[in-house]
């Protein structure tokens, strides 16, 4: 918009002025007609209209799409140099020329001669052609000139049709503008200033000027790309801030290379512990051995491991100094905590709170969620007589600072803490408890050899920095968050990292879902966007001259073409015998009411044996012969693996179509549409006039798929309970008759053998469904 309304020159102003005057006189101006009458190009007139429009309410503009004529190259040629016949007439001397001469030298002579004769401009005298009149008027040229200038209305339609046949003119689409007076109409439009300048301010001229209005609807511009901090490093700063607010002191963790001694042995992690395996830990080749470890401390550690002490029986094995002296890349920052606690004990113990956030290394196979290095967040508190309750309190305080308020603790095992607890938080989105960190009290076998006093207990917890960052920025692949392959957009799009630090105060009830207001706002926003989109589509349609038709068929059907009548449907469905797609039986029944249907069952080589019942999946009748059928459903039993997706049925509609339809719910959708194309009497899915009805079914189908097909047993049972509540007063899941949703839910309950143990509402509903005529052979 901005680009189109800048730089109006004096000429532009003239046209604008002319338009305004014409408006004042006539009340309305049509852009193309105005261009003809004022002998301006249409483009220029449109530019002037746009400029005037941008002034506000001076004029009203309506866009009209119409068909108009323009000259072809040949037509333009004739418009400038005259018609063939006129040129022939003009080329002849008064005494005329011989016919053969004309034919030999004049281009298009046949046509020119014919037309000139017809116009009675020329006559034939013997061999010669001579002028019959003294002067002529070249009507063709006049017409073509008029059309080229946009004045086609002066040319009769019959003649236009003839010219079109002669390929002198062609029909084109054109957008013209109908301009009328606006509420703030005036004929005296001043030249608008583009910007406020130094000179205007100094001279005071700005007072008498009008300024081109600023377009508040366009985006701003930035002269130079700003510098940003990396989102992960920003989140790291936030966590540092939290620890500092809680009175913790940062540990010097700038030593990636660590000895196995400090990384494992000092933590009372036995030398045969799996974590010390080369599969999990990066050992260092150079410098392969550590230079020094405090010898008296090492002796105490050795004794505690091999034969116990400080009230412990130890691990009872031969402790190896060589193993402890191996260098490695630290697997946790707890190695540094051990060093700090040892130092604290040497310097004289006093209560401390330590924290660190730094890199640790694991010899992982790299994938979307695993890196060889990540940042560990760790907090440690050492004081006299700390209890697990204190550890829990600390963790709660810490997590509240990042907006996580619902916590639970699960007993766990960790070689250097006892008791150990995994930290779980309730995930509102997933509606379940997820692990967010690990914690525990350091073992006396770790603390006492260091010289930490007997009554002192040390509480510690840890988590990774990357995981909360991935959740925060909505990233599924960790390599999109950190590392040299990170795309700059991540950093540029997330210039500021803020965490939900204030939630505790503002929102005491964290269990409640989104508020009604926020949902309303969201809904309104979506509707606004949809309206804008609709206007945009209408605009494009107008520009393209396309007429949009209202349609009551589903958008998906419009897009895919959907199932159609009159062609043979060869539908092949692969299904796992452990999950027979029972709903297809009812759909086959529905199909057989309107189509001649052929039903077949095959067994793929991956399936060793199929029960008699599944062999007869379609019932005893197999429908009509394939050659006489218009729909052929072939069911192939196949076993493709044990994962939920492998257990899902798939469907191919035609052997040529590469796309498979996956999942019983989607197959159901396809077949229901196929039913509904042929008859309006069966209304399973989409045929109803109510899109709400279809949307409800869609929702149920998707839920059923995600809970039953993809979910675990827990999700399945809870979904059955949900359905049971729904069926308390209703006899069907959606509306008052059986729908695809009922068929799919019933099928899933049967597959999962959950019907027997289902609540009474569900049992009652299933009985009702099974009595329905479509469900005759359901089981």
């Amino acid at each position, binding site marked *: 918009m901005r680009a189109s309304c800048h730089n109006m020159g004096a000429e532009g102003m003239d046209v604008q002025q002319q338009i305004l005057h014409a408006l004042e006189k006539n009340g309305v101006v049509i852009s193309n007609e105005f261009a003809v009458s004022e002998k301006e190009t249409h483009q220029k007139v449109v530019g002037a209209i746009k400029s005037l429009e941008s002034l506000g309410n001076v004029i009203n503009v309506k866009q009209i799409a119409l068909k108009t004529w323009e000259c072809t190259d040949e037509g333009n040629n004739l418009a400038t140099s005259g018609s063939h016949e006129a040129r022939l007439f003009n080329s002849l001397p008064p005494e005329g020329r011989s016919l053969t001469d004309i034919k030999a030298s004049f281009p298009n002579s046949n046509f020119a001669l014919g037309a000139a004769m017809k116009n009675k401009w020329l006559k034939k005298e013997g061999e010669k052609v001579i002028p019959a009149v003294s002067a002529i008027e070249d009507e063709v040229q006049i017409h073509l000139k008029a059309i080229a200038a946009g004045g086609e209305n002066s040319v009769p339609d019959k003649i236009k049709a003839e010219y079109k046949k002669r390929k002198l003119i062609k029909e084109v689409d054109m957008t013209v503008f109908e301009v009328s007076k606006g509420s703030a109409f005036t004929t005296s439009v001043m030249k608008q200033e583009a910007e406020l300048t130094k000179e205007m301010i100094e001279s005071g001229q700005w007072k008498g000027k009008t300024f081109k209005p600023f377009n508040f609807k366009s985006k701003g511009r930035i002269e130079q*790309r*700003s*510098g940003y*901090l*990396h989102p992960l*490093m920003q989140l790291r700063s936030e966590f540092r801030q939290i620890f*500092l607010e809680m009175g913790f*002191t*940062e*540990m*010097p*963790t700038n*030593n*990636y*290379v660590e000895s196995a001694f400090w990384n494992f042995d000092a933590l009372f992690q036995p030398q*045969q512990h799996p974590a010390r395996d080369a599969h999990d830990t*990066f*050992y*260092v*080749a*150079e*410098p392969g051995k*550590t*230079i*020094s*470890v405090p010898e008296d401390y090492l002796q105490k550690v050795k004794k505690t491991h091999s034969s116990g002490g400080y009230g412990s*029986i130890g691990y009872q094995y031969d402790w190896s100094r060589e193993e402890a002296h191996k260098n490695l*890349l630290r697997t946790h920052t707890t190695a540094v905590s051990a060093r700090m606690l040892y130092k604290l004990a040497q310097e004289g113990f006093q*209560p401390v709170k330590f924290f660190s956030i730094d890199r640790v290394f694991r010899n992982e196979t*790299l994938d979307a969620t695993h890196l*060889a290095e990540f940042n560990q967040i760790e907090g440690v508190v050492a*004081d006299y007589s700390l*209890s*697990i309750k*204190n550890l829990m*309190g600390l963790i709660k305080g810490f997590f509240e600072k990042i907006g996580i308020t619902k*916590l*639970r603790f*699960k*007993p*766990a*095992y960790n*070689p250097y803490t*006892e*008791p*150990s*607890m995994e930290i779980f938080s309730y995930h509102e989105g997933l509606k379940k408890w997820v692990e967010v960190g690990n914690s525990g*009290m350091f*073992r006396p*076998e770790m603390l006492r050899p260091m010289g930490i006093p007997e009554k002192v*207990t040390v509480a510690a917890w840890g988590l990774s920095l990357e995981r909360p960052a991935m959740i925060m920025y909505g990233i599924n692949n960790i390599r999109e968050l950190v*590392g*040299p*392959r990170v*795309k*700059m*957009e991540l950093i540029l799009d997330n210039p500021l990292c803020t965490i939900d630090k204030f939630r505790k105060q503002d929102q005491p009830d964290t269990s409640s879902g989104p508020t009604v207001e926020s949902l309303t706002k969201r809904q309104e926003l979506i509707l606004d966007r949809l309206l804008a989109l609709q206007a945009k589509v209408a605009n494009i349609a107008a520009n393209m001259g396309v007429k949009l038709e209202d349609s009551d068929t589903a958008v998906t059907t419009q897009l895919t073409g959907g199932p159609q009548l009159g062609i043979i449907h060869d539908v092949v469905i692969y299904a796992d015998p452990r999950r027979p797609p029972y709903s297809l039986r009812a759909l086959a029944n529905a199909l057989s009411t309107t189509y001649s249907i052929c039903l077949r069952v095959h067994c793929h080589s991956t399936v060793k044996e199929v029960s008699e019942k599944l062999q007869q999946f379609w019932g005893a009748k197999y429908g009509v012969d394939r050659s006489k059928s218009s729909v052929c459903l072939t069911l192939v039993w196949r076993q493709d693996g*044990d994962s939920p997706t492998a257990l899902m049925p798939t469907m191919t509609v035609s052997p040529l179509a590469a796309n498979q339809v996956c999942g019983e719910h989607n197959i159901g959708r396809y077949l229901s549409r196929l039913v509904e194309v042929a008859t309006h009497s069966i209304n399973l899915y989409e045929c109803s006039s109510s899109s709400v009805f279809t949307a409800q079914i869609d929702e149920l189908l998707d839920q059923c798929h995600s809970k039953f097909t993809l979910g675990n047993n*827990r999700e399945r049972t*809870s979904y059955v309970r949900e359905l049971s509540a729904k069926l308390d007063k209703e006899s069907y899941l959606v509306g008052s008759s059986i729908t695809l949703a009922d068929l799919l839910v019933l099928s899933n309950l049967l597959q999962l053998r959950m019907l027997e143990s289902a609540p009474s509402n569900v049992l009652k509903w299933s009985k009702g469904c099974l009595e329905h005529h479509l469900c005759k052979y359901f089981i």
Partner: protein
Amino acid sequence: MPTVSVNRDVLFNALGRFYSDDEFNELCFQYGLEVDDVVDDPEKGITYKIEVGANRYDLLCCEGLALALSVYLGKKSLPNYQLMPAKETEKYKLIVKPSTAQVRPYVVGAVLRNMKFTQAVYDSFIDLQDKLHQNLARKRTLVAIGTHDLDTVSGPFIYDAKVPQDISFVPLNQSQAIRADKLLEMYSHDSHLKEYVPIIKDKPVYPVITDQKGVVLSMPPIINGNHSKITLNTRNVFIECTATDRYKAQIVLDTLVCMFSGYCDQPYTVEPVQVEYPDGERVQYPTLYYRQQEASVSYCNMLTGVNETAESIAAMLTTMSLSAKPQGQDKVIVEVPPTRYDILHECDIAEDFAVAYGFDRLAADMKMPPTNTIGQEFELNYLSDKLRLLLSQNNYTEAATFSLYSRIDMGERMKVNLENESWVKVANPKTTECEAVRISLLPGLLKTLSANKHISLPLKLFEVSDVVLRDTCPSATRGTGARNQRHICAINYNVKVGIEKVQGLLDNIMVALKVPYAGDNNSQGYYLEEKEHPSYFPGFCGSVIISGVPVGHIGLVHPEVITNFNLNNPAAALEIDMQKVLELINLGK
């Protein structure tokens, strides 16, 4: 953490009631277990995959899990595992030959008499051995278990180690006798067994257990003989465990016999096997040792943050499979059964008490510790953060790259000869991406540029992070032989770029740090001096010097380095050793 597969119905049967998934999850959560997955198989029924603590060997099979949970729920009391007198002491002896000391010096054994196998019991028996092999036995390196049908062999048994050519037998599930060296060759291609082959492959002698008639029972830690194979009809089971760690062999044997003695006609009884070492030492196994461990009531209360009596602590411990009795007011005597080798210290007892008490109950009364301290940042990190902010204010954008590189990225692509550098080499990387710890931040920034060629130029990046260098100074390296060094690296990548662009940034950093510009090699302040560096364009690389000490490089990146990183525009770069700069100006350490 090991995961144990348990048939849901079998487990619930043992627990005496049906649980919904939610209820069972909750029970597991309370006890410190986790249902990892639920597998529904129409033939096998529903299987729970349960994650158990790596130190709880007694929970590695359905029998153990069911028992522990039944005791927890108060439905069963703890069994008393009993060692029966041996029927024929001489017959079930294990005689150890001296040559075993060269390869696998220890052996233990036990007999389970009058057992009843069903397919489920048999599967669980095999499964537990496998779990023990994988976890406690460190993939059979520490301990290897062999189980045999006692009625097919005749003791006393001989544990010997012989040269491979002298061992020949029909291995499990084979029909032909094979010589040991050929057998190992064969198994080195077996997907299941190949990981155990290296344990003895290059030893001069291989361990072998035979009976009185020379029938080979097993060649540990690889394979058993086919002759003494256990079937569903087996009634009497002979168990041997050979080991390089005597204590772990004892744990493995105790665990195995405790878990399956419940299927004997006289439940929870085991018959011992006497082991005779060459030096005359005679030891009877299994030990089935009940250890007395004292736990102080005040300690348990302190660690847990509660105030319970000795009686109530003892009662709660009993629900955790630890039979305990109060002794006086401040003592609980715990009888640690042979299934609970994870109890090392009274802190382990305190934890079981806390679990029995219930973490949810504890959490209901959680409180912040009374520890009052004043927080303090680590100075180096404090200054790094200040400088990161400064660099971003100069319109440079921060990258976060890895500290592990491939050798080629750090050396060849940078035109740097690593022979001359004191870099830290990783011994066992799984991928080439992790072969070396970085000595410079520049390759990471170049790789970041290369991943962002779609972004409009100029691209200006920086990173403030650690590189690692070998160093023999014990104090500087905290005794390890390698130290971190914090670097600042910045790069300006554009169609046209000169050194002065990053030099301006350097000037701004120095202004911020209050280091004056020394102009013409004045020793106070900073200045540049032309100096070659293999990664930079000759003639366009300088040393950054503060008070006569070089602290880094500045220059145009060498065109070959540019192309090596799949880039095509010039780049000016700056990399300085921030720690050295701070040292020189007396900030930080």
